[in-house]
């Protein structure tokens, strides 16, 4: 008999070995060794099937209860629309074109005969009215905060402990080493501030991308597709402090801390919003119903 395949040996490792295979393995050291390894592998697979994750649900339950509230509020605030997401820009464009066409027709039909234009010198030059679209003030709901997380209204306000509630535009949040604060922002974004972070709630210009800072993860957690207008700013977040290095501080100790600090020295300064990692996976793939 030629050497049996790994498939056949794996079946044998699980118990059902035909007689000819058993006879071959008894006389072939290489196959006997493979069979032993596959037996170990089969046991490892059984172990994986048996294993149940050990999770402390209490902390997660608290965070998820608040996330549930925030999600429900977001649903209630969202305007009802059955139109698919991809059609919305077209529908908006079509509406705009229709209004424009109507305006042109109305002006053409109703305009009085054109009078001779006044001399250029006497013509009043009115500055164009600035386009100021109505906007919702920035708000954030506190989902989670540890003891040392503080907030103040504006740069000069008195610092208070960050507890449950809603923060308004201009609020500044600070976390000390080892602290954490998670805030739910508008448009489904979240601000997750790890230790030694400083963030302020302010509206950035349209088109700004989400910050992928690591000392403060801001909006990087599955921001919804199209949620580009950033709300908030993270100051002085140490760019080079990778999450791995942070985790290293907590779990592995000194070597990782050294690495994080070396990177921090290179990238110190105000966090550049728009620094989304180009290698990061595209958003919105996770939910495809």
């Amino acid at each position, binding site marked *: 008999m030629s050497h049996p395949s790994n498939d056949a040996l794996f079946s044998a490792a699980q118990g059902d070995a035909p007689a000819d295979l058993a006879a071959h393995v008894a006389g072939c050291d290489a196959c006997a060794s493979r069979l032993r390894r596959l037996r170990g592998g089969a*046991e490892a697979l059984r*172990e994986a099937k048996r*294993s149940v*994750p*050990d999770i402390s649900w209490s902390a997660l339950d608290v965070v998820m209860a608040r996330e549930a509230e925030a*999600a429900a509020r977001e649903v209630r605030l969202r305007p009802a629309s059955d139109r698919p997401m991809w059609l919305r820009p077209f529908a908006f464009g079509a509406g705009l074109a229709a209004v424009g066409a109507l305006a042109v027709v109305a002006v053409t039909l109703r305009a009085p005969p054109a009078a001779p234009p006044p001399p250029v010198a006497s013509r009043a030059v009115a500055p164009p009215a600035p386009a100021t679209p109505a906007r919702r003030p920035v708000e954030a709901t506190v989902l989670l905060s540890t003891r040392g997380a503080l907030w103040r209204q504006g740069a000069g306000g008195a610092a208070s402990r960050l507890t449950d509630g809603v923060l308004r535009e201009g609020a500044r949040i600070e976390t000390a080493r080892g602290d954490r604060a998670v805030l739910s922002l508008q448009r*489904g974004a979240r601000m997750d501030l790890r230790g030694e972070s400083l963030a302020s709630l302010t509206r950035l210009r349209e088109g700004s991308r989400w910050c992928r800072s690591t000392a403060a993860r801001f909006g990087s957690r599955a921001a919804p597709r199209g949620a580009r207008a950033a709300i908030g700013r993270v100051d002085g977040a140490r760019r080079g402090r990778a999450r791995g290095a942070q985790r290293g501080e907590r779990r592995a100790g000194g*070597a990782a801390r050294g690495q994080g600090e070396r990177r921090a020295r290179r990238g110190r300064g105000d966090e550049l919003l728009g620094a989304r990692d180009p290698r990061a996976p595209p958003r919105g793939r996770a*939910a*495809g119903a």
Partner: protein
Amino acid sequence: MRALSRHEDDAVPAYVTRAQTGDARAFEDIYRMHRREVSRLAARLLGPRGDLEDVIQEVFIQVFRSLGSFRGDSRFTTWLHRVTVNVTLMHIRALRSRPQLGNELLHEPAAPEGDSPIDRAARAERLAALYKILDTLSEKKRAVFILHDIEGVPAAQVAAVVESNVLTVRTRLFYARREVYAAMAQDPTLESIARELQAEPVEGATP
């Protein structure tokens, strides 16, 4: 087929419909009713590394945000498992792009009653050996192998979860098994595991 069958009878459960209308209690119900199966699937996909609690949180946040787009074209549990698989794979991708800080185990399976530290260490060693091999598989093969051969989901449902057809799932499974068995046959760590298992005293036997 434990994971997907629990809520099979109800393709779109009432609490999902309520959550879609903005009922906060219904969102909590989704989390409470599905957290165990999500955690088990995420743990199996993730292996003994990675921050499992972070992944579970991420899965449910993604579910809460995307619930409006769930139209009931597939069963809710299938959709939920799809989100779990995608979020976990994204987490694994992110883990790979970060610097590795050694083979630290970030979460361990729950230990059965009366389990000794030696048993626990042996169990962790077996799992580490298995996931070292599974890490060599491509993402697609890994997901199919874990869903089918570890989680016990039938091929048709695996196809629905990974948004593919049954034939493709079976092909991926065939190649995944071939690669896993070949890697196992080459891994001396597994030989020592098999030896230890043989050497374990039989229950009731005198030492």
